[in-house]
């Protein structure tokens, strides 16, 4: 794979990608098997982006088919994708219940060694080892409830290692970016794991019984449950890239349409009907890939890409699945 890029998501609403947790009435979220950290699976991100591309006129559905591959139809026909997406992984998670030295309230983001290392690899940053104690952009004593966290200063090379690739999205370039630049703490993995177990966003919800023929009386809570989410103000990163068709590649119009979506707001995960999952996206590299269709045959591309043989589709989906997980 030669086209390999990095993209970012900033959550403007809690993200709920459903998981398989079995904790009574707690609605758990998807977690990575190897770290147990919450994440947004690549298939979820890809589906959201596809929907978003398809919703933009003109030619949204056609463009979505060209970019993501035509969906399986009644004849068993599928298309080939020309853009791929990996999982969106945590990078910086907000920790707000904090104060500096018991004094002023602090809004800070935290991350951990392995997330920083993996992101650095993708972002082509120089990876450096981190110590087994907290380091951050604003050293000092942080209080979280009655626990104290002593944060040491970041060395310049470690500060470089926790940078993001490319430029922030203009929508976030004000208070968000400046707050982020001044307020980051890198924790050892084990400490971060504890936070991911206990400090995610939760909301207790209930469904009010509205008739006498349910489990309870009208007006009572028919069902109680707790939603768990990746909190607002979380920064996630993901890998993505193009895998253009040799015969019918997408055009610059497709690239621009995709960028419009990747650099826009889109919704990831479940509970969209109650406002969950909205992210501001941006990418580090927005250059068109090599091998795009020339302007003269763009129309042909858009139409001819729709149908592929089922054999080719199956093998492509397999490839994508391998990349995505």
């Amino acid at each position, binding site marked *: 794979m030669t086209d390999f890029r990095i993209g970012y998501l900033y959550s403007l609403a809690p993200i709920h990608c459903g998981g398989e947790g079995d904790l009574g009435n707690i609605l758990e979220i998807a977690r990575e098997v190897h770290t147990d950290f919450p994440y947004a699976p690549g298939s979820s991100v890809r589906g959201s982006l596809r929907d978003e591309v398809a919703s933009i006129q003109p030619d949204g559905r056609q463009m979505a088919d060209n970019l993501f591959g035509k969906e399986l139809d009644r004849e068993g026909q599928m298309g080939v994708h020309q853009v791929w997406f990996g999982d969106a992984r945590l990078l910086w998670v907000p920790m707000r*219940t904090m*104060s500096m030295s018991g004094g002023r309230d602090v809004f800070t983001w935290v991350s951990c060694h392995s997330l920083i290392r993996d992101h650095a690899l993708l972002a082509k940053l120089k990876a450096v080892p981190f110590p087994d104690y907290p380091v951050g952009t604003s050293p000092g004593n942080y209080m979280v409830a009655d626990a104290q966290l002593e944060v040491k200063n970041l060395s310049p090379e470690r500060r470089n290692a926790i940078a993001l690739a490319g430029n922030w999205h203009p929508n976030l370039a004000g208070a*968000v970016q400046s*707050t982020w630049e001044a307020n980051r703490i890198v924790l050892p993995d084990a400490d971060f794991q504890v936070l991911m177990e206990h400090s995610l966003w939760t909301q*207790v919800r209930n469904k009010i019984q*509205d008739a006498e023929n349910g489990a309870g009386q009208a007006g009572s809570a028919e069902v109680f449950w707790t939603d768990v989410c990746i909190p607002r103000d979380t920064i996630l990163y993901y890998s993505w890239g193009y895998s253009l068709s040799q015969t019918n590649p997408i055009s610059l119009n497709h690239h621009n349409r995709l960028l419009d979506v990747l650099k826009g707001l889109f*919704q990831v995960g479940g509970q969209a009907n109650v406002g969950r999952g909205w992210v501001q996206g941006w990418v580090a590299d927005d250059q068109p890939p090599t091998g795009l269709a020339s302007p003269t045959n763009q129309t042909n591309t858009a139409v001819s890409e729709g149908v592929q043989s089922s054999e080719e589709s199956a093998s492509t989906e397999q490839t994508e699945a391998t990349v995505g997980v």
Partner: protein
Amino acid sequence: MYSGPQLVELLERQHQARQQSGLFKKDTFTLQWRAKVGSFPHPDIETIVSAGEPCGAWRPSDGRPEDKRNVGENWKQMPKLPLNGYIPGSCIRGVVRAWAKQRPKIKLRMYQLLGYQDNDTISAGKIEFLDAWPEQPTKLTLDIVNPQEPFQVYHEGQSTPLSLYTLGNGKDSIRLTVAIRGIPGRTTEAEVEEVWDWVQQALSLYGVGSRTASGYGGVKLDNFDQPAPDPDYSVKQFDFSLYSQGCAGPDIKTLELRPSHCRGWLRSWMLRFLLGVMLKENAQITVTELMGTLESPADNKSRKGSVRLQMTQGEPWGELSQNQPNFYAWEGQLRLSARSDILNSIILPVVRFAVMVGGVGRGWRRPLHIYWMEKRNGEQEEASRGTYLTLTHELKSGVKPFGLPPQAENWRDLYQEWQTAVQQRWPSRFAPEAGLKAEVFSPRTCAVYLVPGPEAEPVDRKNLTWKDIDAVETRGLGMDLIYNPTYKRQPDVGGNAGRGNAYCSWVSVRRIPVKEGTKEIVCLFMGDENSLRSQFLGDLAKISGAVHLFGVQPSNPI
């Protein structure tokens, strides 16, 4: 950093840039008072907290967050929580669905547009509801839950007040942005417009969150007409004025008038009346059917209730009197809504009686008067006590007081009409009885007399001043009788508010204006057989100029 409102701002711009503006609707609503909406798990596991997002530290110096404290301790240590409040989109969606289900013509359409679940089949909706964030970051503040029914009606011990954290501080209104969005490609601008109208109607009519029938969660939209009531429901609107010693909220030193004061007033009066025509258990069940409950004392069931109460602040609001001893003035509007047949025949008659025999909130059993309060050091100082409540309503003939003329036949006839309505509505529960150990308002269980009041009204309500600051001159003969040492501070009659365990008085006194000055309406609840109350009844009837208005008399006690 406060990023709460950012999503709606950015999403609106994106819809505009993509020529999808018609699929996005937003507006600024004003939260009028407090809202308990959604839920945040408090570290002590029990305290109920409105939805919020962490924004600061739980400071150990203020006590451990997981510690359970009484309301007074929380007021000192955690009057605010380090949480920015908001209204979850799920709550707005739930209110809209509940509103639509009351309207047969809209119900099916609502299922089409908002989705539905039919056993295992889920049909997705087309409209998304976003979280509504205050324009300015707003931390959750301490509130109080203090049920009074066992104390006020049954004369049992006082309940323990509980802490509750709400969006809103009880003083300032909060501007917040409500928004919905139609999913592009799946819905039309007309459908989004249709749902947006529902949002405006539902929020304006019901408010948002829990306790909306008690005045919580009321929201207002600029330039939006009064929403239509639910089908078969009627609304009765009063202008009210209350001059009183003041009621406490979460802080006992900050005096306020809360919608829940009015709600508790109405609820307790419904119970006092129903206890006169039903066995205790049935009366309790009926009250909870009307007013709602989380857990009925009669059968442990929760009930939705059907009577809603909203209070709108006016001017003056909590204004201090011009001279000492201080009292406070509140004016505003009170809206009661219920099914039309219940409102007119069951609820409003009780309100007519209630407003004639007492006030609202702390000191409701006494007219606004001055008394000499003995301090701990033995010195005495003047203090304002009691309330002066008036309700008016607008008729074709103009604005009129809402109540009852001080003539026995009016009281007898209205009670008879009310009793007949109750009997027709709940025939199997109807069983008039007497002698309950509770405050029961019925011809068999209470005595109401009209007696001479102070020569002139002692309060200049227009200028918020005491006209005559001689304490005795603020009392009529009914108050004089209560202040007689035989009855004063006696739990069986006069009550005892200030010494150790508090006891309610079994007597309420209200001052009313009449042509020749003022009168007092004295209502004695007989409760169980009690010699001191029987003695008080005899003394009450013997007052020179006393007129029997309603209920038992010395010659015909319970």
